[in-house]
């Protein structure tokens, strides 16, 4: 009897995989559900600042789903432009991360085994300092009387300071700098697994080193490139701190719009709708990332 009952009760294996599921439920599914709920509510001046979706009148339960917030996002071109601009910035920043990160990851993977961990450490080391402090450090470097401008003036290259801070260039510099490790690490894990004999086979069949790179190394690192790119692109779309601190007033990003809706306009329903739409936009890249990440974990290079 007890034995039969035990078959239907969860066993030890379940206890092992339960915590991550519980974590996801508590910190992803529940907040998402709350945000989704708020996005279908109306704004009201109260506490909390939105209406309830359900209402008991007599014996009737009415569920009111208000899609006005979403329609508002469609009607006001500000939101469309902000999404588009965020995506554009994310794509361009990801491209530059790849351009800078690939050679670094490649170089580390070619180092002798003993030096590789040190090199990886150097990649990760800056993130041991607070993110905000590093961004302020970049402001110190890029501002009009900052390190870079003073140095260039001292060299005599320029006569008056270059306006870099509070331009899109500063935002790109900040993003590429902050997200570079997320590009390098997945690329490195891919590149370090490459079989050197494949390159030798390519040389043997008439490839010069750069041709062997294009024909063998690059296609075989596709999974790493995609994993790294998604890992950079997805959070950059919603990035708030870097455009806020380093960008100008014209640097339009969805993270800033979200902030304004939430804290300046106190419009929680519209802010929630903005967040939900952003998530939906990111589902496609997240799926792509997941697909290639699991491929990478399985160790298949094809």
């Amino acid at each position, binding site marked *: 009897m007890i034995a039969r009952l035990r078959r239907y009760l969860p066993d030890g294996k379940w206890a092992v995989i339960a915590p991550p599921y519980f974590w996801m439920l508590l910190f992803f599914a529940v907040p998402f559900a709350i945000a989704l709920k708020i996005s279908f509510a109306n704004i009201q001046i109260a506490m909390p600042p939105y209406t309830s979706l359900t209402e008991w009148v007599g014996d009737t339960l009415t569920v009111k789903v208000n899609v006005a917030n979403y329609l508002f996002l469609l009607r006001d071109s500000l939101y469309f432009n902000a999404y588009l601009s965020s995506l554009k910035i994310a794509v361009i920043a990801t491209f530059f991360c790849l351009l800078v990160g690939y050679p670094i990851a490649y170089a580390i993977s070619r180092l002798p085994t003993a030096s590789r961990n040190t090199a990886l450490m150097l990649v990760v080391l800056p993130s041991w300092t607070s993110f905000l402090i590093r961004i302020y450090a970049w402001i110190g470097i890029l501002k009009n009387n900052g390190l870079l401008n003073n140095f260039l003036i001292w060299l005599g290259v320029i006569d008056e300071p270059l306006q870099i801070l509070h331009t899109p260039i500063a935002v790109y510099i900040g993003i590429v700098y902050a997200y570079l490790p997320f590009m390098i690490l997945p690329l490195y894990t891919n590149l370090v697994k490459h079989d050197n004999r494949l390159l030798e086979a390519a040389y*043997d069949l*008439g490839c010069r080193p750069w041709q062997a790179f294009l024909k063998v190394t690059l296609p*075989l690192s596709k999974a790493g490139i995609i994993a790294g790119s998604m890992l950079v692109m997805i959070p950059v779309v919603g990035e708030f701190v870097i455009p806020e601190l380093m960008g100008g007033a014209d640097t339009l990003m969805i993270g800033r719009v979200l902030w304004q809706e939430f804290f300046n306009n106190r419009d929680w329903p519209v802010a929630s709708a903005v967040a939900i739409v952003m998530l939906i936009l990111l589902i496609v890249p997240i799926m792509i990332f997941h697909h290639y990440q699991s491929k990478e974990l399985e160790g298949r290079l*094809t």
Partner: protein
Amino acid sequence: MAATATSVAASTAAKTEPLREDYVRIDDLTKEYDGFRAVDDVALTIRKGEIFALLGASGCGKSTLLRCLAGFEKPTYGKIELDGSSIVELAPYDRPINMMFQSYALFPHMTVEQNIGFGLKMAGHSKDRIKARVDEMLTLVQMNTFAKRKPHQLSGGQQQRVALARSLALSPKLLLLDEPMGALDKKLRSQMQLELVGIIERLGVTCVMVTHDQEEAMTMATRIAIMDAGKIRQIGTPDEIYEQPSSKFVAQFIGSVNLIEGTIVDDEKDYVTIRSDVLEQPIYIGHGVTGFEGQSVAYALRPEKIKIEKDEPAQEHNKARGIIEDIAYFGTHSVYHVRLVTGKKLLVHFMNAKRWASERFTWNDPVWLSWGDNAGVVLTS
């Protein structure tokens, strides 16, 4: 050593062919790593159209020598000439040499077709030309039906065929094989060995192979170089290496051998006698050797050259008595471990020519061993 006898027979056909021109000439070749000499002053020539095997234990330098030929290693000094011109300074991609890699190194992201056509594509041939040549290669290795597969969808034997086709597609002047059978199981190995030799001989391509497997070298190669500690110990056809080893090392490396230490007591033009502490009778050799009276030598006697019988043979020399201490039955032959009256142990092969041999011996049987005047080799080193 069941296959040794058959492979010696197979390679005698190659031996009777006339000597061909020297095609690859390696001279004075040395490769050092941090003071360690992986390849030590190697000189050898390889003739056009032959399959030349570098045979040795792991770490003997055979792979380094092969990589020097391919261009992946730059020799510390020395000369390598191919078809009359030096190739030492050429990069791997400029050498008319292709290699079949150990465990094949097929490009995992390309199909069988793309793998085979890769070299042709890099050489800038037209699409039609590449297609025709790839089809020709696929037919050669009987892989036409697998053209669109990826390497990971193929078995080990099929991958090997693709690797061979890829290395032959550019019609190289020299084909290098690095442990060609290393990734195959034993049964498939002996089948692929002969098939590989068939393909290579049909195309007439000159070939250098590296292997640690002596059966493989004996089955496939026209000539074999035995390597040890970066040096070449002996070069010869498989039967020369087996029947006329030049040193104790080579005699012991190939097959099994009985080494009898002794001293030359008679050194005449047409015969030599050797006295040994482990034999009651002297060893008589029916031809002269380069030695002198009083020189200590080793007499190398292969186990299958010894005759085993119950009664004392009539001959005066080249015999010994003992008892059978151990028997190993291999089906084709049995190996008897015979302890001589002096305590020395000799190995004797006995062909099991009959199914129910009444003359088969058993443990502790007293036996007489004997051998002919030309059965063994006198070794001075």
